[in-house]
């Protein structure tokens, strides 16, 4: 029996009780492997669907395929797994910010299937966000199995995300950087070591099952000073493309929500529109990695107008797919749009300054990819490392840094929150560790209530009250109704100061006459941030906490500061 009992509670296994870091590292190995496997599964699914549908591409009715795929994907999410959530990455960040990385088990597989349906049928989206939420959910549920605490769970969520990105791109550093920069937002060795291990495991799983290939190979680029200077212009273009994509995605989402139809029909409408665009510009369909490969090889032979049109078409197709209810991520579309934007820019440069010997167009395509990733995620390191790893092109590191840095800065100036973070920021849900908002969100009114206050009644004489004041060390005294016990107001010591030195008043003044009845009160369910806002606005040091018209205690800035410091130390230690 004991064997079975210990089997159910792995957190009690002796080996894990020796050292928490060891437990985390072992868990990271499992999480990295599982999330890597999830990525491989999705990749294989997409390849299989591509092969199934490829021979249908010459039929005129093929434009309905993305519609069917998006509708099925939406039905699967809504009716079968009942996910009721968006594209994945914001949900992971939300759960890390607010609930210590708790994610539903169903999220570990739901987005894999739904995004395979959307992307495999031709929808313009990427498989990266789905594998990120799958990996993160795997990490979260493994942490739950091991009964880990919130911080350890968050680390394993990061491990899952890192393993997934590492596996799908065969890019361990990019996976690691993405998990820390975008998902966790906290550079600490306690996170970095397990996440690095998970990245390695994810990459290894991918290499074992799919081979060790650089996703987008290219020839050597000979970059000169003029090219580096031209990167500034490219950064402006990729920033503009990022902003356009971000805004179009949001506006499509808003427009779609106004359509009085079920979600699956809306998804089908979006898919149908993408299919129609795909009839004329097939580059917009699917994840589009072949377009990326062609552009960075310098083999994309179309002229400026067509390339520019393809860039805009891919932006519109991505917004139609994701904004109208399809399932998928924005990584792959960003790579495609970035590469096309880079190519457009190169064609423009060649047109304006034909005598200058510019580097090969593939280099600009590659830099454009970094610009789009950095602009959309506002995560420059992820953009730089991802492009270096997926192209194996370290020689472009200087222009990569320039494009990434400028694009991120420009996008941040125009859109202060990245695409993934926008809603979280709007609703105050982006709570990075150690920040004021995070500390306050981890505290609640109930744990700050000071209950050692002495309640008085409105019919009490000042003399009796003074004898109570002598026994109390508080400055505030709640006044309650004698019969109902309801809270009526509050008396501060300052309120009786003028009567204290006049003993005649002791037997003539009742507390009901001098109490302050215009009191701002706090309820235990109130957000602490709102309570502090009220305190600051009214210049209050303490406020009464009331439930059902009954006084239950005081909340003061003093006790808040004590708890705040304790919480801050826990979060930053």
């Amino acid at each position, binding site marked *: 029996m004991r064997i079975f009992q210990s089997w159910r509670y792995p957190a009690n296994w002796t080996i894990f009780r020796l050292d928490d870091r060891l437990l985390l590292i072992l868990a990271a190995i499992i999480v990295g492997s599982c999330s890597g496997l999830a990525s491989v599964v999705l990749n294989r699914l997409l390849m299989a669907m591509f092969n199934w549908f490829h021979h249908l591409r010459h039929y005129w009715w093929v434009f309905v395929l993305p519609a069917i795929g998006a509708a099925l994907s939406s039905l699967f999410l809504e009716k079968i797994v*009942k996910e009721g959530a968006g594209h994945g990455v914001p*949900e992971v960040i939300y759960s890390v910010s*607010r609930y210590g990385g*708790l994610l*539903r088990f169903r999220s570990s597989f739901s987005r894999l299937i739904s995004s395979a349906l959307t992307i495999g049928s031709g929808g313009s989206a990427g498989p990266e966000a789905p594998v990120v939420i799958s990996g993160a959910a795997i990490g979260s549920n493994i942490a739950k199995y091991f*009964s880990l605490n919130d911080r350890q769970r968050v680390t394993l969520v990061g491990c899952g995300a890192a393993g997934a990105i590492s596996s799908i791109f065969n890019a361990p550093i990019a996976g690691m950087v993405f998990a820390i920069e975008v998902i966790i937002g906290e550079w600490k060795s306690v996170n970095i070591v397990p996440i690095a291990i998970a990245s390695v495991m994810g990459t290894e799983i991918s290499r074992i099952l799919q081979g060790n290939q650089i996703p987008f190979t290219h020839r050597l680029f000979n970059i000169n000073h003029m090219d580096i200077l031209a990167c500034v212009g490219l950064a402006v273009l990729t920033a503009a493309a990022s902003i356009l994509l971000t805004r179009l995605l949001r506006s499509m989402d808003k427009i779609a929500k106004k359509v009085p139809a079920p979600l699956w029909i809306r998804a089908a409408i979006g898919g149908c529109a993408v299919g129609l665009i795909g009839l004329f510009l097939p580059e917009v369909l699917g994840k589009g990695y072949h377009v990326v490969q062609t552009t960075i090889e310098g083999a994309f032979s179309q002229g400026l107008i067509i390339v520019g049109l393809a860039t805009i078409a891919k932006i519109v197709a991505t917004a139609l797919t994701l904004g109208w209810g399809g399932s998928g991520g924005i990584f792959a579309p960003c790579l495609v749009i970035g590469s096309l934007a880079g190519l457009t820019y190169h064609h423009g440069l060649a047109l304006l300054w034909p005598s200058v010997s510019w580097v090969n167009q593939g280099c600009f395509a590659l830099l454009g990819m970094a610009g789009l990733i950095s602009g959309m995620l506002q995560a420059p390191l992820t953009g730089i490392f991802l492009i270096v790893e997926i192209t194996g092109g370290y020689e472009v590191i200087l222009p990569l840094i320039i494009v990434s840095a400028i694009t991120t800065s420009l996008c941040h100036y125009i859109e202060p929150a990245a695409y993934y973070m926008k809603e979280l920021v709007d609703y105050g849900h982006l709570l990075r560790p150690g920040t004021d908002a995070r500390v306050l969100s981890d505290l609640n009114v109930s744990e700050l209530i000071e209950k050692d206050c002495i309640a008085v009644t409105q019919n009490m004489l000042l003399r009796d009250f003074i004898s109570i004041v002598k026994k109390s060390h508080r400055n505030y005294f709640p006044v309650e109704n004698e019969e109902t016990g309801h809270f009526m107001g509050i008396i501060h010591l300052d309120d009786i100061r003028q009567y204290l030195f006049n003993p005649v008043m002791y037997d003539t003044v009742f507390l009901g006459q001098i109490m302050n009845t215009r009191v701002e009160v706090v309820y235990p369910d109130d957000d602490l941030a709102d309570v502090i806002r009220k305190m600051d606005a009214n210049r209050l040091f303490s406020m009464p906490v009331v439930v*059902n018209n009954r006084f239950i205690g005081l909340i003061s800035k003093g006790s808040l500061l004590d708890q705040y410091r304790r919480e801050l130390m826990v979060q930053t230690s």
Partner: protein
Amino acid sequence: MNHQLLHIFRNSPLGRETLLQSIYFSKQAKVSPVIYIPKSTKFLMYFENDVVQIDLDDSYLMSPDTALEHATELLEQAGVEPRFLDPKHYTASTLPDIHTNFDYMSCPRSISDLSSKIGLGYIGPRVRRIVKSAQFPVLITSPVYKEWESIAVFFGGSVNAFNALKLGFRICRISGMPLDVFTLIENNSQESYEKLITDEDLEKEMSRYVNNWHFLKNKTLEENLYDVPHNALVVLGAYGHHLFKTFVFGNKMEKIQSTISNNLLIVGPNYTAAI
């Protein structure tokens, strides 16, 4: 009345019965009912180490225009101040988060499966997850409103059973209702159960609160349950044993809930009782 009971309101005749049960329990246990009127069929409950998605059956969204009015009317008739929960946070636009800082939660036997909503012998998977994860006891109401006039605690000696016993003491103390304890004598002797109480230093509370301690000696648990008063609130622990034992010998909570139709107050493994 600082303690709170969460009630998910279903605007239907069955939902009315359930709310009446919750209101009665709240008045007896001196807690404030907090009513959540769902606007979508899904919501999330984030517990300490688990997140549970509740997929409500469609009857919870029936006649949304009258839901607030009906709930308010029932609460006001009972002289209870209506308090409604408005979710502050959303995991997704149609997926509100319901916080879990409550002292009790009221649930029907099944929250997501309409077909089995009034049947005995079945507790839905979501309700099970809530019981397993919650730090509060779960009130599983009987299908028809019935006022309970005594408390019956099932005590078998497990950690959860001790928590159930302490919760029974607490409700007995607050409500003033008589408390009976029921123990099924299996392989152990009556003395061994008494020794468990002594070891836990609960003798004083037992003599103060408990009317009768019934030691059930019939062969099966089901045969013994006729002795439980029909108008008692049954308090019992759940999921106290490990998987293997439950798998082989069955689960007592399941047997009890499938045999009697009383209101059940179920204490899960994460609840820590104070008397």
